[in-house]
């Protein structure tokens, strides 16, 4: 369903001041902090070389430049290309931007050919193109399912953004948040002080008491608790219903859990633009887990936070001996399976559909659990197609949802396929157990005028959970 030219032009418009674009020599839609613009190609190549030296990306690059067949099959799977119809948005085309730099500067044949043909190599324009293209991709990795040669374009996007960030090119929205998280006084991405957190927990307890008539507490700093809980910290500001659902869930199971005041943020934007940050944020989780001597790390409703913890916590914090990482949906599902939850199926009677967050569904990690759970208390559950591992990205993946200035892009080119998919279900509620997906989908529903309310899974669970007799 390609958009028309006017819609595309609107989505792609750069709203920044022309003099900023000129000064930063960066015609991209997202804001970037002021940066060194001199000598960019050389610095890009230095950063690339340093990264190749210390990481495992060289393996994939070598392999991909050898086998890439340019068959264009990935074009059938990228929601960005499906909406824009612009060949530059074909996943393989995007990856080629970086692969060609690799081939030219880091393979023998490329270097020789460059010398012979007098090709000067990487230019500033190519860097600008990459800076634009790698943030047009939502890193959803859907295209990786469809590449006969096994290329993972999401990996290339990930690497491309990493290199760019090493020369100062990264969306300001992400940089500011991680700076607060790693260097700021509050130590979390939303800059929530501890006092405010405690207040908030208190408030939620009162809310639950007034709705459900039970005393539900949010345990704080309990040493030796089984589960140490990290919510995407923005939930404390925007998703009280989700957190209340989680509080009620633990009340029903009676398991020991805690929120640590030393560190309570699951968000990890390092996954979106810089591996060093990815690692340092995970160490914050590790230190808090060590401080509170917990046994399991539990991540709230958040796709990227869950993926960064599940797949990279072991990589950075102790290998196979690292603490196990769970997502709250797994926990809730297990509890329900074990018969520890009493759910009423006469409360949420509206049509409900489920949106798979890419980061937890693509690897096949969390696909069936939420569905089984939802079907247990939503008599009118409908699927959107495609779903599960093949799901379509909400359009705000890869951190783009946090970049407010690109909303027109997100809610048209990147999100229109999703919007139509949700519209087709006719559902009243769209369950999206991910802080990023929720924000993006709400904006999308608004901008594309779809009449559907976006909620977390625990928002609905809270309604259906029968806490009487506890």
């Amino acid at each position, binding site marked *: 369903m390609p958009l028309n030219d006017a819609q595309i032009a609107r989505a792609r418009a750069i709203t920044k001041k022309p003099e900023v674009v000129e000064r930063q020599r960066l015609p991209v839609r997202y804001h970037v902090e002021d940066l060194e613009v001199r000598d960019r190609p050389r610095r890009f190549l230095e950063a690339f070389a340093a990264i190749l030296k210390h990481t495992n990306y060289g*393996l994939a690059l070598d392999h991909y430049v050898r086998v890439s067949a340019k068959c264009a099959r990935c074009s059938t799977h990228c929601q960005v290309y499906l909406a824009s119809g612009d060949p530059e948005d074909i996943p393989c085309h995007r990856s080629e931007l970086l692969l060609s730099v690799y081939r030219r500067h880091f393979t023998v044949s490329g270097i020789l050919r460059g010398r012979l043909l007098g090709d000067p190599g990487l230019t500033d324009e190519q860097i600008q193109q990459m800076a634009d293209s790698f943030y047009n991709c939502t890193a959803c990795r859907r295209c990786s399912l469809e590449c006969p040669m096994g290329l993972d374009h999401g990996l290339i996007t990930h690497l491309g953004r990493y290199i760019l960030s090493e020369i100062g090119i990264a969306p300001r929205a992400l940089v500011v948040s991680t700076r607060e998280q790693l260097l700021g006084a509050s130590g979390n991405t939303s800059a929530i002080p501890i006092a405010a957190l405690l207040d908030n927990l208190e408030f939620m307890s009162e809310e639950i008491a007034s709705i459900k008539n039970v005393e539900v507490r949010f345990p704080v700093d309990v040493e030796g608790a089984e589960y140490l809980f990290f919510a995407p910290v923005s939930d404390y500001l925007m998703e009280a219903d989700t957190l209340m659902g989680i509080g009620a869930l633990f009340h029903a199971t009676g398991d020991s859990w805690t929120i640590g005041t030393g560190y309570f943020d699951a968000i990890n934007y390092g996954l979106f633009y810089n591996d060093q940050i990815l690692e340092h944020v995970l160490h914050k989780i590790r230190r808090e887990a060590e401080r509170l001597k917990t046994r399991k790390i539990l991540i709230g409703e958040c796709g990227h936070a869950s993926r960064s913890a599940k797949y990279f916590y072991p990589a950075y914090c102790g290998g196979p001996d690292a603490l196990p990482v769970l997502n709250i949906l797994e926990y809730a599902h297990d509890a329900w399976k074990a018969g520890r939850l009493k759910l009423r199926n006469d409360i949420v009677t509206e049509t409900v559909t489920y949106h798979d967050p890419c980061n937890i569904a693509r690897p096949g990690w969390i696909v069936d659990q939420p569905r089984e759970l939802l079907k247990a208390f939503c008599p009118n559950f409908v699927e959107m197609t495609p779903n599960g591992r093949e799901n379509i990205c909400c359009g705000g993946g890869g951190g783009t949802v946090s970049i407010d200035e690109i909303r027109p892009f997100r809610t048209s080119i990147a999100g229109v396929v999703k919007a139509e998919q949700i519209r087709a279900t006719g559902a009243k509620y769209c369950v999206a157990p991910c802080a990023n997906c929720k924000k993006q989908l709400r904006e999308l529903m608004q901008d594309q005028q779809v009449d559907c309310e976006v909620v977390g899974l625990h928002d609905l669970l809270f309604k259906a959970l029968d806490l009487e007799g506890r």
Partner: protein
Amino acid sequence: MEAWIEFGRGPLFRLSFALMVLGLARILMLTLVGVAEALGRAADRRVACKEVLGKTLVWLFPIRRLWTKRPFYGTLSFLFHLGLLVTPLFLAAHILLVRDAIGLSWPALPRPAANWLTILTAAAALALFVGRAAHAGSRALSRLQDYVWPPLLAVPFLTGYFCANLALPPAAYQWSMFLHIYAGCLIMVLIPFTKIAHCVLLPLSQLVTTVSWKFAQGAGDRVAATLGWEDRPTWVPNARLNAPPERRPMVRKREVTTL
């Protein structure tokens, strides 16, 4: 001409074949070594073998997946690959050559089947070429080799078919045979250096991707150190320009490395 053909069939064929085998063995080894090195660097070496194997098989035998999108192109591509693999290997004339040279032999395709397969492969090659040129997306991606390969691969098929089935005048027959052999040799030499290397690398693709996502502990800090940014965290990109004095030092390196 006779001598050229003899040369092509003999020494040139052996040389090209050896180059192909050595070239492919080299990249196969390099990839496997790369995988081992990458795993060596990573702290978390667990690979979801079943998952990797499953995805690999899906694309090695793309019987289910290929028809879901662009079914026409997919079918063509499938037949093309089938023909490329089966025809030269199970052609009676080729098997005879091998038997004369080294004494090995195996069952051959019946003549009509071989003929049909040959025609089909050549036709599919040309159709793929046209498909690539006609599809705007593919056009935007294509390099020179992407256009050259299908017709180049069709040459030995067509010429082989002519030699075997048409009552050609001797000169035409020799030219056909010449093209048949020399194109075959050229193809073999080019395989390891072009995308056709996927004939041996494809089974490793999913493994390579999975292992590449296994990140090495402390790599980010080492990258920063190599770039001379040790105390200038990269998430403060303008640090080099104006470092705010009150910034607390970031996580000390020791904390990370002594883990």
